């Protein structure tokens, strides 16, 4: 029973449904769309550490990483009116904005590539959402994880990944799909618990 309760809590956190305090994420985007800079600031407080973690994995240097995070939030400010909560979570919407900027900057050459678990603190120091995500990523088949790390963190096109690994573009695409579907299946399990 305790495990079920923990899983339920994790599922709530991992989908970002449970706000620590104040307005929920979607309401903050609505306020941002209406030109409320305080709401943008709250989104920043909530998500900038996550975006910065990804930015640091994708580009070299703190300055570059900060520029990426800033750009992503400026994009969010400009496009908040088009955000649709029925399609995508606020967290993923912001991550998409960051990756888009990062891929533009990287321009086909991998930035910083390192394993996802690099620098991970002991398990009990992790928050529930991150712990569940780490477990999902750790459960990826090695070939799928390899292409996802090159693609998601490295921002590399499939052809570039294929060249690096010495496999065909079709193989890279198939591994990308398999990896994403693997993660999706993990999410669906968590979602079923929530």
């Amino acid at each position: 029973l305790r495990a079920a309760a923990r899983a339920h809590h994790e599922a709530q956190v991992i989908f970002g449904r449970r706000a620590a305090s104040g307005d929920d994420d979607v309401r903050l985007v609505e306020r941002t769309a209406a030109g409320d800079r305080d709401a943008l600031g709250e989104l920043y407080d909530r998500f900038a550490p996550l975006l910065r973690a990804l930015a640091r994995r994708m580009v070299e240097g703190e300055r570059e990483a900060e520029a990426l995070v800033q750009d992503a939030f400026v994009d969010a400010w400009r496009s908040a009116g088009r955000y649709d909560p029925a399609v995508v979570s606020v967290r993923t919407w912001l991550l998409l904005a960051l990756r888009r900027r990062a891929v533009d900057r990287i321009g086909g050459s991998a930035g910083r590539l390192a394993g996802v678990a690099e620098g991970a603190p002991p398990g009990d120091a992790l928050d529930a959402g991150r712990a569940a995500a780490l477990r999902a990523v750790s459960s990826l088949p090695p070939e799928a994880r390899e292409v996802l790390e090159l693609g998601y963190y490295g921002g590399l096109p499939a052809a570039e990944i294929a060249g690096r690994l010495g496999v065909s573009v079709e193989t890279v695409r198939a591994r990308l799909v398999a990896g994403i579907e693997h993660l999706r299946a993990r999410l669906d399990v968590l979602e079923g618990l929530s």
Partner: protein
Amino acid sequence: VTAFHPDELLPQLVAGGIAAEDRASMDEHLSRCPRCRMEHARLAEAAALLAVALEPVPSPRGARDRLLAAVRGGA
């Protein structure tokens, strides 16, 4: 016009790199195709676990103020 098959490109869009011209056509397609929009989001939510798994990095001092200053005046 040759049929555009965005499904093939969606995984690369959410978890890889994609050439600017391909992305422009993807964006155009996603803006008018609800089915692909939902599929794109489905894949993006899954790929986001790769970011959520990373250790969060605190914002540098002043970064929040710089953002709010940048959007002041309808940026």
